[in-house]
Each structure stands twice: as structure tokens, then as C-alpha cells.
């Protein structure tokens, strides 16, 4: 049951309370290309939540692009229904449907004979906006995507770099402010540094726009970075797991998923937790620089730790000291041991904290507030605890889903039973 529960949950609406409204729903959508017998997409049930980025990720040839193109009916489904914002669009005029859905492809496909402004104005023009409105919209979109309209408006696509062309592609897809954006490996053909920058910019953009986005990639790291939710697809677009990146990393439901997310998935999971959200070590021995020696010695002896943290009179961490240092009375406390190097702010991710921690002398990282004041200590055991908790929570979530599903099946059986009794 466990490995199917995710897909079932998506299709039967038993998704947890934190799930937003469904923008697009695929009901048993399938596609068998003419001349082939094996479907490229077998009966697929998928709910695409409003205002979120849903990433479709899976190995090459598993049907991601086909799935995406079924949504805007660039490919006509062989079976099933597509519900767009509550409306069955399986049979509506596909050209009109597509004007409501932005579409970005990997090859970008800018019209080479049209200026950037004309490219971006395509859908507004198709929708019959007047010139002035289109103009204003083009400028707005160029600025939104970080391109200066006065420079780029009248250029032709061949006069752009790859990264700029990609931005224009996104701006063009946003042309008439569609509710939904489909993106097929939009950052695939770009060097890693530019890709990283475009991803970050796009996430910033999305935090303002809150569009419903379906994002296809074959790169699990990109999926984890971009996705509010991820659908990991196997052969014929079968959903292997559908969940938030945190939970997928913490609890891959089967071997296919864990193979696909690869080694180091636990470490990647640390990116989703922030230092401020976890319990810090508070019983770590700490002294401030003015503490008398015998008091400091007493505290050190009272704890099992090998090191003690020295703060200055403003509570700012200064150095680490051990028994040997304590015995040395020639210098004040804060000039004895190695300096504190690993300091992390509360909003750092655990991944950042781990990196700092590994660099520190004492095997601990000090959490400090924005004024540099000591808040607590983070050590490897704490991180291990967090990982364990994440895994347990994810597992609990899946167990609950399975239980809910079972309960629901019972209710349905009862309904059938009641109906039979009444009849």
C-alpha cells in the first residue's frame, strides 16, 4: 500500500490540509502516440495546486514533456479529462486554451524575425489588446525579468546571450498574465552559473507572482530547488512519489525514488530546515570573560564536554578553552584558546550550519543573533536528531495517509452497502 498511497492521495483528494486549491486536474489522462503500442503516458491522475511550482522529474524518456504538452493540448490526449480551474477543457478550442497558459520550452523558440518587444507582445496582441497597453506590458515584463527596456526592446533575438534569451522566453510566456505557466526544462541548455542565477531570479519572481507552474526537469537537484511539490515520474509517467521536496528527501517511498534522488539525499534535506527552528544545545559550558577562574573551573568540571565557550562582556563568542587553557593564568580567559570561527545566524539552513560546524575547531557551531550575541550551540548530534525526526515525521505522514485511505475505502464500502440495503 505504501508505495501507491501517494498517487492515490493525489487523485482522491485525501491530501493534507496544507494543500492549496487545485488549479489543474488530470483525470486518467493517457497518450499513446500513433504508430506505437506502448503508451508514452499511461492513465495519469495528477492534481496541480494553485500558486505553487510543481516539478515533474524523472529519467529521460519517461514522458515528462508529453505530460506537459498534454496539459495545454499541444498533444491531444488519447484518454481522460483535463480540468482547468474547475472547467473541463478536454474539448475546448486548444488555441484559446493555450492563450491562457504560458509555455516555455527548452529551446526557447524566440521568433528570430521579431524584436524582443514583438516577441513578448505576442499573446497580448492575439488577445486584441491595444498598442499602448501592449507597450506598457512589454516594458513591465522586461523590467520584471531584469532586462532594461531601453536597451533590449528593439533588439532581435540573435543579439541576445543565452541567458538573456531565456529571460525573454519567460517574459513572453507571462505576456498576457496567464494563470498557469508550463516550463519544459527551461534552464537546461545554460551554463551552471547562469542557470543558478536564473533559477534564483525565477524563484524571486514567483514569490511575487504566485503563478501555478508546472516545471519539467530531469535534474533532481533542480527539482528540489525549484519545487514546492515534486512528482517523481517513472516509466510512462507513472507517479512514483508526489510530495514536498523535504518529505521526498526524508522518506523516499521506494527503491526507484531513492535511486533517483541518489546518494546524499539526507544531506540535501538539511537545506529545508533552518537553525532557528530546532532545539539548540543549552547545557554547554559557557563563561564570560569576567568570570573568576575558580568559577570557570567549577563549571568546566561539572560538564562532560571537552571544551568550554568564552564570551565577551557583550555575550559575543570569543574562543574555545579546555582544561589545559584553564590552568594557564597568565592571560585573560578570552585570549587563551582557539578563536570561535563557526558562527551561524538563526536563519541559516542546517546545511550551512553543518558546513560551518565541520570547519570549527571544537566540532560545534555557535548560533548568534544579528548583533553577534550567543544564542546556543549546535553540534553533529543535534543535526543527526533533526534528520531522524524529519524521517520519522515523513514516515508518520505516509502512515497516516495510508490509514486515511483505508478509512475512506471503508466508508465507500459502507455507502455501497447502505445503498444496497435501502434498495
Amino acid at each position, binding site marked *: 500500500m505504501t508505495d501507491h498511497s501517494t498517487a492515490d492521495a493525489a487523485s482522491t483528494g485525501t491530501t493534507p490540509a496544507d494543500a492549496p486549491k487545485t488549479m489543474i486536474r488530470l483525470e486518467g489522462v493517457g497518450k499513446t502516440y500513433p504508430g506505437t503500442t506502448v503508451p508514452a503516458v499511461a492513465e495519469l491522475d495528477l492534481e496541480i495546486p494553485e500558486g505553487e511550482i510543481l516539478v515533474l522529474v524523472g529519467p529521460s524518456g519517461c514522458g515528462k514533456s508529453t505530460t506537459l504538452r498534454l496539459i*495545454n493540448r*499541444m498533444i491531444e490526449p488519447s484518454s481522460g479529462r483535463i480540468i482547468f480551474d474547475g472547467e473541463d477543457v478536454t474539448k475546448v478550442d486548444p*488555441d*484559446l*486554451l*493555450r*492563450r491562457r497558459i*504560458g*509555455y516555455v*520550452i527548452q*529551446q*526557447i*523558440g*524566440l*521568433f*528570430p*524575425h*521579431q*524584436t524582443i518587444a514583438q516577441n513578448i507582445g*505576442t*499573446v497580448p496582441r*492575439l488577445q486584441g489588446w491595444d498598442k499602448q497597453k501592449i507597450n506598457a506590458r512589454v516594458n513591465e515584463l522586461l*523590467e520584471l525579468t*531584469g*532586462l*532594461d527596456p*531601453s*536597451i*533590449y526592446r528593439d*533588439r*532581435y*533575438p*540573435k*543579439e*541576445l*546571450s543565452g*541567458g*538573456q534569451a531565456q*529571460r525573454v*522566453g519567460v517574459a*513572453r*510566456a507571462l*505576456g498576457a498574465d496567464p494563470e498557469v505557466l*508550463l516550463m519544459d526544462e527551461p534552464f537546461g541548455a545554460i551554463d551552471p552559473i*547562469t542557470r543558478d*542565477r536564473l533559477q534564483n531570479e525565477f524563484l524571486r519572481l514567483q514569490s511575487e507572482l504566485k503563478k501555478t507552474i508546472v516545471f519539467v526537469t530531469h535534474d533532481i537537484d533542480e527539482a528540489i530547488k525549484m519545487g514546492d511539490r515534486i512528482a517523481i515520474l517513472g516509466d510512462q509517467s507513472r507517479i512514483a512519489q508526489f510530495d514536498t521536496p523535504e518529505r521526498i528527501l526524508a522518506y523516499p517511498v521506494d527503491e526507484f525514488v531513492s535511486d533517483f534522488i541518489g546518494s546524499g539525499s539526507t544531506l540535501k534535506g538539511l537545506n529545508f530546515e533552518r537553525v532557528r527552528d530546532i532545539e539548540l544545545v543549552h547545557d554547554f559550558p559557557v563563561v564570560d570573560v569576567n568570570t573568576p577562574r575558580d568559577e570557570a573551573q567549577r563549571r568546566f568540571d561539572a560538564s562532560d564536554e571537552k571544551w568550554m565557550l568564552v564570551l565577551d562582556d557583550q555575550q559575543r563568542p570569543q574562543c574555545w578553552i579546555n582544561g589545559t587553557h584553564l590552568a594557564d593564568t597568565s592571560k585573560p580567559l578570552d585570549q587563551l584558546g582557539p578563536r570561535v570561527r563557526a558562527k551561524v545566524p538563526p536563519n541559516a539552513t542546517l546545511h550551512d550550519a553543518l558546513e560551518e560546524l565541520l570547519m570549527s575547531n571544537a566540532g560545534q557551531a555557535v548560533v548568534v543573533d544579528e548583533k553577534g550575541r550567543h544564542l546556543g550551540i549546535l553540534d553533529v548530534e543535534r543535526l543527526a536528531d533533526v534528520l531522524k525526526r524529519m524521517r520519522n515525521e515523513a514516515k508518520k505522514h505516509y502512515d497516516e495517509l495510508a490509514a486515511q485511505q483505508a478509512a475512506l475505502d471503508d466508508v465507500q464500502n459502507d455507502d455501497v452497502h447502505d445503498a444496497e440495503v435501502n434498495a
Partner: protein
Amino acid sequence: MSAPTRTADPPAAAGRPESAAPGPAPTTTRRPPGVRLIKSNAGLIISPAIIITGALLLLWNYNRSDRIFQDERALDWERNLRPQLEQHLSITLWSTLFTILIAVPLGIMLTRPGYKRLGGPILAVATSGQAIPAFGLLILAFAWLGRGPWTTIWALTLFTILPVLRNTIVGLEQVNQSVIEAGRGMGLTKSQALREIELPLAVPVILAGIRTALVINVGMAALAYLIGGGGLGATIGAGIQLRRDLVLITGAGMTALVALSVDWIAAIIEKGLRPRGL
């Protein structure tokens, strides 16, 4: 060689629009406009020079020659040369026009999904048709349609369908599939995609085919007089018949000059119609 040579890193500059300082102007690696203009238009500038020189040579040759009565008569502008020139041009233009009207729509049709299969066979027929010598085709048309300029026009139309058809098909097929996909994905209908994306992007190739047809037609129009179609060929014929070198040279020279001029004008049109940005 200061700031403008920095072609790199436009995205960074774009990220902070306010930094669009005087330095990196939008023109990145372009040559000075003057040089570019002359270089890319060299052909367009040299052709008229050759044409004018040729015309002056013909005129000079005419004036320095001893002319007998037949010369004067055969080379009389109002009586012979001007009407022949007009016929020559009208044969050329009509046959080219008909070729375009037939071959371009046919080419478009043969690249649409439903009719793609027919493309191969039709091109094959057209290609083998091209193997018939134009002169033979002219005679065949004469046997079938009789004397007159229209016979020539139809024969030439038939003869020049192939280059235009082939270039229309090739031109449409070479359009980047992802550009069409992006357009259709945004909601362009099939015919909008054809009109706004495919045809503009195929224009350079189609125009090249049309220009080929035009050049063939203007050359072949010189043979029209053989089946009573008129044209400058008539003067060449007269020169041969009368054994008058002056008439022969003037007729042949004018035919050549007309061909050059037509090609030159076609080149200008081709340049003008070529979409910017390609």
C-alpha cells in the same frame, strides 16, 4: 578599443539597469556602419556600374559604326527596340508572376501535414520536367498553343515552377521546429503560425528561388521571337538574317543588359523583403 569591446556579461549589466553607464553601449561587436554597408551591398553597387558601362559601350559602338538603311531600321527605337523591350519585360514578368502564383501556394500545401506525402512525387515530376531543354518546351508549347507571346509565357511558367516550388518547400521545412512549437504553444492558430512565423522565416529562401526563376525567364524570353512572341530576340534574329554585326551586337548586348538589370532589381527587392533579425 576601450569599453565597447567588452562583449561579455550582459546579464549582469541587465540585472542593474541603472548601471547602464555611458560605457557598454547596446552595439557590441558591430563594425562601423559605413564599412558594413559597402561590404554587404558590394554586388548591388557594382551591378549598375557594369550596366551603365555596357549601355555606354553599345551606344558608342552604334555611333562609331557605318550604318546602312537596314541597320537604322532594325535599331529604330520607336519602331522596334522599345516595343521589343516592353514585350521582353512583359513576358518575363507575367511568366514569373504565374510561377509564383502556382508554385508558392503549392509549396505551402505540400509542407502541411496532410499533404506532405505528395511532396516527394511532385518534386520528382517537376525535376524530371526540368530536364527537358527549355527550347524544346517552347516548341512543344508552340505545337500545342500556337504562335504568340502567351505561348512563351505559359511555357516559361511551367519551366520555372521547379526552382520556386523547391525553394518554397525547403524554405518552409528549414524553419526551426521549436520556433513553431513556441508559437503554437502560445495560441497561434495554424494559419497564424504560417503567416506570422513560417512564411516570414522562409522568405529569404523562397525569394532566392523566385530570383532564379526571374533570371531564367529573362534569358529565355530572348527565344520568344522564334514562335512569334516578340522580345529583344527579334533584333538578334534580324542581325543574323541581315548578317549585320551592329544589329546583332546591339540586340545581344541589350538582352544581356536587360537580364543584368532585372537581376539587379530582384536583388534589391530580395534585400528589402528579407526580414530583419535573420
